């Protein structure tokens, strides 16, 4: 038996990108793999969930969870991991804030099912077949997880110890987080394992940002040839930098794409979308109501911009998972 610390990596509602970024720490991953005992990693290793069930409570030193919680299976697995792990790390924007799938919360579950199984133009489903949680086939009962009413961030379902934001988190931050864990230098519980500054503070274009940005027209990035040296906002292009946590290495900015906010909110900000909106409003330069309306109309899909990664934790949308939503809840 090994006395190495046991680490489990689990995906819930995930696109796979978060697991990929762990692989992307390249050869350094070998060092990590050598220093810990990986007990679960569905994307890469063949361990079964019942192996985890058999473990003692708290036997896993670190449980890394990526993806959002949308169905009863996600919730059960999250709860199991919580029970068996000493430390839970919410990994990536989906686990931390609900992520882009969280935008589905703008529609009801019924609406989504109706569209996906009936109304979408590519669907041919004359019998109106729709997935059920239980189906009888040849006398046998088949079951599927139950889809919840909304997408939840991980901490709306279980207690989370640390957050590593990003969609996905960049490899260097992943390595830094794992190193901090191995060396017992993790900060206070509840911390985000990324910078405490706003992206604007570390952005190379910040120096070009005028004291007072005056936006007279809002343009979308694909409509213009953006100046690669100037602050996006000063060019009338929405950039979420002022309301987003730094730490990504300005990945988007460096390829001349404005920030969409995947690192989430800065410390102590209750709702980064609302915060950004406030800042954006003060930059708008319009003399009268008509001018103001015109610029406001140029912000296409306002809610999608403001909450692209964080709708489930926004003021209007946040919902703790009700325990009765998970039937097998103990």
């Amino acid at each position: 038996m090994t006395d190495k610390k046991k680490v489990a990596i689990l995906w819930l509602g995930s696109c796979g990108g978060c697991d990929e970024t762990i692989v992307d720490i390249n050869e350094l991953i070998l060092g990590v793999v050598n220093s810990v005992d990986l007990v679960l990693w569905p994307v890469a290793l063949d361990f079964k969930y019942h192996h985890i069930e058999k473990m003692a409570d708290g036997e896993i030193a670190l449980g890394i969870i990526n993806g959002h919680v949308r169905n009863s299976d996600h919730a059960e697995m999250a709860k199991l991991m919580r029970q068996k792990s000493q430390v839970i790390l919410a990994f990536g924007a989906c686990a931390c804030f609900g992520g882009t799938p969280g935008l589905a919360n703008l529609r009801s579950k019924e609406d989504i099912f109706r569209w996906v199984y009936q109304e979408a133009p590519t669907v041919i489903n004359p019998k109106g077949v729709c997935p059920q949680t239980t189906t009888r086939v040849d006398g046998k009962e088949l079951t599927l997880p139950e889809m919840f009413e909304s997408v939840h961030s991980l901490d709306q379902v279980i207690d989370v110890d640390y957050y590593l934001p990003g969609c996905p988190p960049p490899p260097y931050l992943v390595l830094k987080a794992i190193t901090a864990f191995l060396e017992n230098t993790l900060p206070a519980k509840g911390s985000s394992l990324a910078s405490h500054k706003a992206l604007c503070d570390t952005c190379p274009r910040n120096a070009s940002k005028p004291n007072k940005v005056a936006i007279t027209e809002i343009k979308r990035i694909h409509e213009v040839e953006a100046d690669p040296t100037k602050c996006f906002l000063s060019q009338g292009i929405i950039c979420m930098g002022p309301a987003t946590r730094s730490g990504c290495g300005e990945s988007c900015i460096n390829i001349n794409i404005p920030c969409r906010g995947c690192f989430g909110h800065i410390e102590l900000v209750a709702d980064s979308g609302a915060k950004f909106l406030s800042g954006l409003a003060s930059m708008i330069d319009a003399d009268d109501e008509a001018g103001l309306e015109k610029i406001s109309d140029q912000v296409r899909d306002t809610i999608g911009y403001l909450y692209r990664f964080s709708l489930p934790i926004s003021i209007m949308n946040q919902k703790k998972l009700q325990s009765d939503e998970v039937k097998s809840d103990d």
Partner: protein
Amino acid sequence: MKEKEPKIVCFSCRFSWGYLVSEEDIAARLENWIPIICTGKIDPVHILTAFRQGAEGVLILGCPEGDCHYQDGNIEARKRITLLYNVLQSYGIERERLKLHLGADPEGKTMPQLVKEMADTVRKLGPRSGDTPTQKKSATRTK
């Protein structure tokens, strides 16, 4: 049976609204009243929180245009509110449920009437769809 009054949260700037009477006096006449200094202080977070906590409408009373104690706080408020309309709409909250009214009433006599008018507008819209956002299907889908 008397119909229940819709819950209206009213923020008002103390520089123009009711500064000649005591706060208790206005509070006795207005439920859910939040006096502030300068509407420029109102963050979208405050408005969203009011709706989140069940407000059927939010009425903001600011100083007349060109007459803000802090130069242009009321105009800043107007900009935020205009942008916020799009967000509220995505949550199924109609534009009419958030209103900025610029004017002055040192004795605050018209405040209950303004709140009542807001309540009437909101009552006509019917009850709020709640905090489950439901966009109209046709809003963003094209077949």
